[in-house]
């Protein structure tokens, strides 16, 4: 070859950004930690969906998972708050600027124990947020105590047996009012990827419980949150695929075997039925099926519940189109005549 090959133009997404533009700092979590895989999936999903990183606000509480927002999307603002109380910080930020895309990253300790109260109220408000619960059944950063999602009878590395039942965060979220609820596994790349893309398209609270093994403290025999246990017990409800609104290509599917849910932005969430007649828009069925999975000893994954039409918390507040944060003085300070009227009423 006589000509010098020109470097191929770097691959970009629909807003002209490279995947590099979605990357973050180098992870300091343990090698093999499930959380790192989830960070990678977030990067891919945000890149593929063409989300402007500057519009994203990352929120986290305290714990290993809550450290992870430093390891993806450096071009997004991020708030590493206090233990268990990220939901309130995210809520406040969304009140100030409804145009933000809120991404919350939390863990089972952060959400299900100390943060249970705020989690519950976040779910019932249906705030627009993607809430990712990186669930490993154990407190990693304090070196290996049980969390409230640890299964009954599972053991710590030290042999201590958990004798309390786990809290099912997905069942809870469905009952409380979250409008897109699912469970996945950090090792299930395809499913998690599709679910995250659907999460980005959704307007309302998305609660994704992602089983994310802790290689250091909870990946042993006797753990029900280990890679090995998940590979043996994961039971997908359906095959999840997602077609964003901006994609022209229409993949054919068979309505007899695939359920299509149209999201508010026109995207399409497709669930290829593995279980016949599972209806993810039916709350009661969703909770019933989750309870059943506990009895059967399955780790059920997939999209359990979706309601693409419910008004979000921001809709209900009927706030003005421009974000409250940047309203000018002329809009937020009433005129002299208003003060005079108020005074007159008090005379």
């Amino acid at each position, binding site marked *: 070859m006589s000509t010098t090959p020109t470097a191929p133009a770097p691959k970009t997404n629909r807003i002209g950004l490279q995947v590099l*533009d979605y990357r973050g*700092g180098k992870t300091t979590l343990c090698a093999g930690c499930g959380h790192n895989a989830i960070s990678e999936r977030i990067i891919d999903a945000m890149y593929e969906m063409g989300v*402007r*990183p*500057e*519009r994203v*606000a990352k*929120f986290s509480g305290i714990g290993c998972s809550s450290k992870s*927002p*430093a390891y993806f999307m*450096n*071009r*997004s*603002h*991020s*708030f*590493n*708050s*206090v233990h268990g*109380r990220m*939901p*309130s*910080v*995210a*809520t*406040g*930020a*969304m*009140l*100030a*600027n409804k*145009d*933000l895309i809120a991404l919350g990253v939390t863990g089972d300790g952060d959400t299900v124990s100390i943060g249970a*109260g*705020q989690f*519950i*109220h976040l779910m019932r408000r249906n705030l627009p947020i993607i809430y990712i619960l990186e669930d490993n059944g154990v407190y990693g950063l304090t070196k290996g105590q049980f969390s409230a999602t640890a299964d009954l009878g599972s053991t710590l590395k030290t042999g201590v047996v958990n004798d309390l039942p786990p809290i099912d965060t997905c069942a809870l979220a469905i009952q409380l009012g979250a409008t897109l609820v699912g469970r996945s596994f950090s090792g299930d790349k395809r499913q998690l990827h599709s679910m995250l893309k659907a999460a980005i398209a959704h307007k309302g609270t998305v609660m994704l419980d992602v089983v994310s093994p802790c290689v250091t403290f909870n990946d042993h025999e006797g753990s029900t949150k280990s890679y090995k246990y998940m590979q043996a017990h994961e039971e997908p409800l359906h095959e999840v695929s997602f077609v964003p609104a901006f994609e022209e290509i229409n993949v054919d599917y068979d309505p007899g075997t695939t359920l299509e849910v149209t999201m508010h932005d026109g995207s399409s969430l497709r669930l290829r039925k593995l279980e016949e007649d599972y209806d993810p828009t039916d709350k009661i069925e969703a909770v019933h099926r989750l309870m059943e999975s506990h009895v059967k000893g399955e780790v059920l994954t997939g999209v359990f519940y979706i309601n693409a039409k419910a008004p979000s918390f921001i809709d209900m*507040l*009927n*706030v*003005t*189109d421009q*974000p*409250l*944060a*940047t*309203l000018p*003085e002329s*809009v*937020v*300070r*009433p005129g*002299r005549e*208003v*003060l005079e009227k*108020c*005074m007159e009423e*008090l*005379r």
Partner: protein
Amino acid sequence: MATTDVVPQESSGQLGQQRVVNDMSIQVATVNGSGSQSSNTVLLRSIFQMGVPISGKNLFPSNIAGLPTWYTIRANKDSYIARKKEIDLLVAMNAETAQDDVKSLAPGASVLYDEPLALDKLRDDLIFYSVPYDKLVAPVCPEAKLRKLIKNMIYVGVVAQLFEIEMGEVENAIRKQFAKKAKAANLNLAAAKAGYDYAAANLKKRDPFYIQRMDKTKGKIIIDGNSAAAMGCMFAGCTVVTWYPITPSSSLVETMIDYMKEYRIGPDGKATFAIVQAEDELAAIGMVIGAGWAGARSMTATAGPGISLMAEFTGLAYYVEVPAVIWDIQRVGPSTGLPTRTSQGDVISTAFLSHGDTKHILLFPNSMIECFTMAQDAFDLAEQFQTPVFVMSDLDLGMNNWMSDPFPYPDKPIKRGKVLSKEDLEKLGSFARYKDVDGDGVGYRTLPGTDHPAAAWFARGSGHNEKAQYSERPDDFERNMERINKKFETARSFVPRPELTGSGKQKVGILAYGTSHWAIVESLDQLSKEHNLKADYLRVRAYPFTREVHDFIEQHEHVYIVEQNRDAQMAALLKLDIKPELTPRLRSICHIHGLPIDARSVTDELMMMEGK
């Protein structure tokens, strides 16, 4: 239960004395939930409308209905509006407390009581007036179930007749009170008239008190501090309010909801604000901080227990450097303490709220006007210094009715502090969030959503370098801590300055803050008239202390620090701040019985400590 601690002594209302005009206090003892609040407000307004300065103080239980409550109205021609220690007329409507209430009066005081209570048998050194309320209420109120509520308006008429309060003003006050309910207004007016007529026909005036028309309330308003604060926050450009109900702060936000719905809806019919009732105080402050971080002027209102719950988040906001405004309507103790009584007991705990090294800007409003103006001061300071700012009101200020001059329209533009826009970043190329560019300790921030690749920064506690990158390096940490401290030092020159009364050249100085002000103003006159003691008075309006506070202590031999808490909390803060050799000058007068402080107590205690 007695609500006064008066030692029986010479009263101003002895039999056969001369007329006492426009100088009296009336205490109305009722059962809460009986509609007495309307009657009390009407009585207060009637006197106010006659041009006589007034104050009204509600002493109520932590209960909805059925427990005793007392309302004290003071009318004073010299504009003394602090609580008066002595009661001149007791309106005894509550059988349960009537005996104790009567026993606690000073000789010569008057009692207006419900006839069946037969209180006149209890003492022979008081003036008694009896009124058969049940007999009077039946003809004016055919509906039996309303009688309990209407009955209270009868005493308004009786008092009006006894004190020569004009019935025309009583009617005006009733029409204002029931502005949207004509039927209720008419019923109440009939009740007041029945009381007036009964008194005219049956009661022989024996007390010396009269109300006469003056011109000292012209143009003035009557409002409570929580409403004044709500209005102030609205005009200060507040956009996000998140809160959790707690007495005595709830009415601040509830009033704000009303104001904002009326005056802060844009032409598109949409709100230029968001008000959210949170699940608890932990969430309320978390939302305030999230909103402040994202650029809103955000606030919450709470009381002591809420402040405690907000401690952890306040520390985070202090270190992330997020603006937040927190109104603390101080009250006594825990929820099962005396949650409906006033106090200045949160000064130290709030000044240093949280963990690690934290200290916060506090503002101390003393009046309705300052509840209004300090709202903007608080938001401006919070955004200027990127830190939580606490406004230390109290129950007395927040929930009682106060006479006030009308509020001034804000004369300075809203200050949003150091925020870099997309355009700024295009010029600068990059920025370091926590770099002290201007030498005042305050860095520049960007808001999430700023559309520039260099805008983002990572908000976390104190473990970061100037660029907001994670760091546990000792030098980074130390530099950061010192810079945050510098902000606090800079704030000394920006917080509201103290207010000096007097020449500043006396030997004795009094230092007070917040609602204690009104007792001090009166006490200064008592000291001068009764003891020929001239004292200077400095009203502290903010923490950190400004230079004037240090100078005042340096310039006076004795400085009496008057406050409404047990542990002399302001004195303790001062001792940390002033030169050690000056601390022996400080003397504390602490008032802790849950009722608003009165002048007489201050005067007596100060004279005792002066050794005179």
